[in-house]
């Protein structure tokens, strides 16, 4: 998957990918998908936090980039079919639902 000429990503690049994933998560209108994307990004990066081998770092980084592309595409697709009703978790005052 990783082309042989590329060096392992450096710290700022990795943090940039992390930030981009969290930003992409914010684009989703659906509460569940948004929270999942955020949680998965955090868990994924924490899990691979202590990698030292440059090859595994590169492959984890490449996978992260793929996931970022997926998240961005899906945010656009979801927004085309966004439901009007918000999830109850996002309501400021759930008592409004009853009225």
């Amino acid at each position, binding site marked *: 998957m990783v082309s042989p000429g590329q060096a392992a990503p450096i710290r700022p690049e990795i*943090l940039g990918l992390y930030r981009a994933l969290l930003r992409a998560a914010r684009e989703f209108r659906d509460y569940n998908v948004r929270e999942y994307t955020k949680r998965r990004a955090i868990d994924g990066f924490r899990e691979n936090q202590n990698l030292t081998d440059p090859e595994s770092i590169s492959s984890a980084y490449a996978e992260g980039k793929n996931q970022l592309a997926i998240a961005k595409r899906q945010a656009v697709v979801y927004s085309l079919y966004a439901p009007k009703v918000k999830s109850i978790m996002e309501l400021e005052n759930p008592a409004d639902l009853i009225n």
Partner: protein
Amino acid sequence: MATFSAITSVIFAPSLEPSFSNNVIAERTSNLKMAIGGWRKNSFPSLKTNRFCVSCSAKPETVQKVCEIVRRQLALPAETELTSESKFSALGADSLDTVEIVMSLEEEFGIGVEEENSQNITTVQEAADLIEKLVEKKAA
């Protein structure tokens, strides 16, 4: 705006009554009246101007909010001391935590932090200053 900060800085002066603490954020107008009277009585203008420079960089409420968010993100116990000079790394935050903290601050204040700016944030005070600057720019 500048005089406001000068007056809030006077609250920290030891010569005033000890009833004013850092955490008094409400009742701003009453503090104002009391503090103006106090300032005129005291005659250490050089001390006050030093404090003026330190506190006019970021409003106390901003620093409070930042502290709250940092505490929540890092799950710090209530006893941990958290001042505006606290470094994130000293509180046990690694670089991933710092990114998460900056994202939470972005969401809380409705601002957008650039890549280069976020790499320079290491203390609570720096974060508060950057937030103030961005909020001002947004309001302009």
